[in-house]
């Protein structure tokens, strides 16, 4: 029986006629391929990104001038906090600032 799975743009055909268990294990291993490195890095950096957003929002709530400056340059503010101004992070910050 043939099973086509589309993965990372390539069609990987898996013929499930195994003679050895090692062959089947190899196919099983191959189904868990690395996620794109950029995706993984964004997810890994979620805690510091969240902490930076929390700090910026807290400060913006206390300081109207800072809030105005922040709204005018979200990317710069995040970068100064050491956080990659990635689209989702920017979206969350915009949402939190209202």
């Amino acid at each position: 029986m043939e099973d086509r799975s589309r993965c990372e743009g390539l069609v990987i055909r898996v013929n499930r006629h195994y003679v050895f268990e090692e062959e089947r294990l190899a196919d099983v291993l191959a189904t868990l391929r690395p996620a794109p490195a950029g995706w993984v890095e964004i997810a890994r950096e979620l805690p510091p990104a969240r902490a930076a957003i929390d700090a910026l929002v807290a400060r913006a709530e206390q300081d109207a001038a800072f809030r105005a400056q922040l709204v005018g340059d979200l990317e710069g503010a995040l970068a100064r906090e050491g956080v990659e101004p990635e689209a989702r992070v920017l979206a969350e910050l915009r949402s939190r600032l209202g």
Partner: protein
Amino acid sequence: MAGSDYLDLRLGEFLDSLSAPAPTPGGGAVAALTVSLAAGLVTMAARRSVDSWSDAPGVAAQARALLARAGPLAQTDADAWHAALAALEEPRGETELEERLAKAAEVPLAIADTAADVAELAALAAEMGEGTYRGDAAAAAVLAEAGARAAAKLVGLNLTVTADDARMVRARGAAEAARAAAARALDSGP
């Protein structure tokens, strides 16, 4: 044949398509399929060698993986080549042309790399496999070498690749590794 994956065609249909006066399928597709066929031979030889070769199951697993890696590259090569030809024939920006040509070089490079690995496995099978099937393994090594050399040539013909380009160095390295493996396979006694 537009709209069909080569791997879905009957062998006769593919041969007809190959012979037709059209740019694809061409040398890259045939190189990929040759490497895939060679990997199939190695899989068979390893599967028949379990009684005499403890590594046979692992070699069969690797050969299957390389077969699955090489086969789809036939269509991928044709698609990349079509895209590159389209960019050459129609007025497009320099960047897009370069990108498409670079992509067209990546596929034969992948074919060459895979071919080198198949040749290596074939050489192992020719040395260690069950006697009856060592000839098949040696044939696989020679076929894989041919695939590697053909693919390396195609890398070199790409307009974006120069003689000392890293991709050309890699392609030549793969062809040389395949050559050495095929020589070992042919030297292996019955």
